[in-house]
């Protein structure tokens, strides 16, 4: 029952996205613009300053993620879809996991383009030398960001001025994810990659994911109750 609900919610989001491609297109374009803006700040004499690639990558992911979260849950407001979804005879936690999976898939699609592009533009191709570690860091960071983000965006569906409130709430709380993600990626993107350091930050990310996923699953039900 749980897995079927997760799949149903996830499939619904994916199908909507595949038909319109609206969120992915806008999110990607926004992330690219953000990268461009940062390039002006962090490129000196034609070369990026040290560790700039990692920072720019994660800031772009965080900005794009906020935009995607707002967009995906704005859709649930039309025709009171969110209420209908919550009234379905299904475990609420499963609905949360389904939405989370949708967001993570969306961000993963965006990252698939964003990461090579940032690596190319900021001369950080060395991080692809350890593809598994890089993917693990990106996955753990994205899940951590999306776990908190999905819960808050869902909570904010019924709130006033939710467009401003989402980033206001999300950024301070996801700072540990950003720090760990940036440091881990930066360790991999050094001319001589620092693998133990990357693994250390990855562990912190996994730990963060575990705690905040449990907290989100635990509080989703009471938070969404009327």
């Amino acid at each position, binding site marked *: 029952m749980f897995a079927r609900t997760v799949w149903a919610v996830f499939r619904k989001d994916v199908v909507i996205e595949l038909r319109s491609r609206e969120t992915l297109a806008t999110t990607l374009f926004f992330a690219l613009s953000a990268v461009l803006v940062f390039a002006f700040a962090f490129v000196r004499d034609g070369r990026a300053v040290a560790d700039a690639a990692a920072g720019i990558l994660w800031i772009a992911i965080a900005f794009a993620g906020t935009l995607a979260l707002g967009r995906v849950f704005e859709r649930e407001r039309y025709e009171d879809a969110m209420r209908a979804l919550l009234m379905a005879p299904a475990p609420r936690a499963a609905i949360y996991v389904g939405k989370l999976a949708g967001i993570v898939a969306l961000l993963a699609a965006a990252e698939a383009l964003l990461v090579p592009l940032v690596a190319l533009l900021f001369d950080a191709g060395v991080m692809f030398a350890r593809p598994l570690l890089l993917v693990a860091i990106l996955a753990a960071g994205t899940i951590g960001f999306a776990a*908190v983000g999905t*819960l*808050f965006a869902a*909570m*904010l569906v*019924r*709130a*006033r*001025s939710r467009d401003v*409130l989402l980033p*206001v*709430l999300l950024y*301070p*709380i996801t*700072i*540990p994810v950003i*720090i*760990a993600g940036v*440091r881990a990626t930066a360790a991999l993107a050094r001319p001589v990659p620092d693998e133990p*350091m990357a693994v*250390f*930050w990855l562990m*912190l990310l996994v730990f*963060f994911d575990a*705690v*905040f996923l449990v*907290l989100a699953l635990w*509080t989703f039900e*009471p*938070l969404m109750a009327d």
Partner: protein
Amino acid sequence: MLQRLFPLTIVLALAGFATAPFLIGAAPYESTMGLVQKIFYFHVPSALMMFAGAFTAGIAGARYLFTGAPRADRLSAAASELTVLFGLIVLVTGPLWARKAWGVWWDWDARLTSSLLVWLMFTACLIVRRYGGPGAGKLAAGVALFGAANVPFVYLSVNYWRTLHPKTTVVPSLGPGMREPFWFCLAAFLMLFLTLLAVRTRVGELEALADDLALERDVVREH
């Protein structure tokens, strides 16, 4: 409980804050930082009260989410406000101290950064409460819970982030003569914290009561 202790805590807080300047004035000077180190006696207790407020708000928020008790909601709101108040004190007194001790107003040191982040999280919590519209209480309770749960992560990540680039900062060690005023000030701040918490929850209670009465009157008028 909190409000029953109110007469005791307010007297102790007033007495503590009236005595504290004398104790601080009599305390010895720190050897490397001298006079400015005396900010410590109000700075550190404020920081501890900020964390006490954060955890109180988080735990009360969790209680509100799961039991729906309005009292827990009011306690969470009061504690978030105090977290922001004491956090502001920490964030203003800290740079004044740093200006003299380190030569800069702000340093991206582990403790400074994590205090700033905790302060930001709970300010966000107050913003939600203020501008979230109907049902914002639940939202704010969730934010407070997540904020409190995030405190260890913030501290850990910022700490490791900074220890990669260590910086020598003078961490005061407490000898006799400094120890006593510090614990005294900590006690005074705790009493202040409890007093303000009691008053703030009482205000919340009265406001809820006034809302109920107004609602009741409107209902009566409609019929």
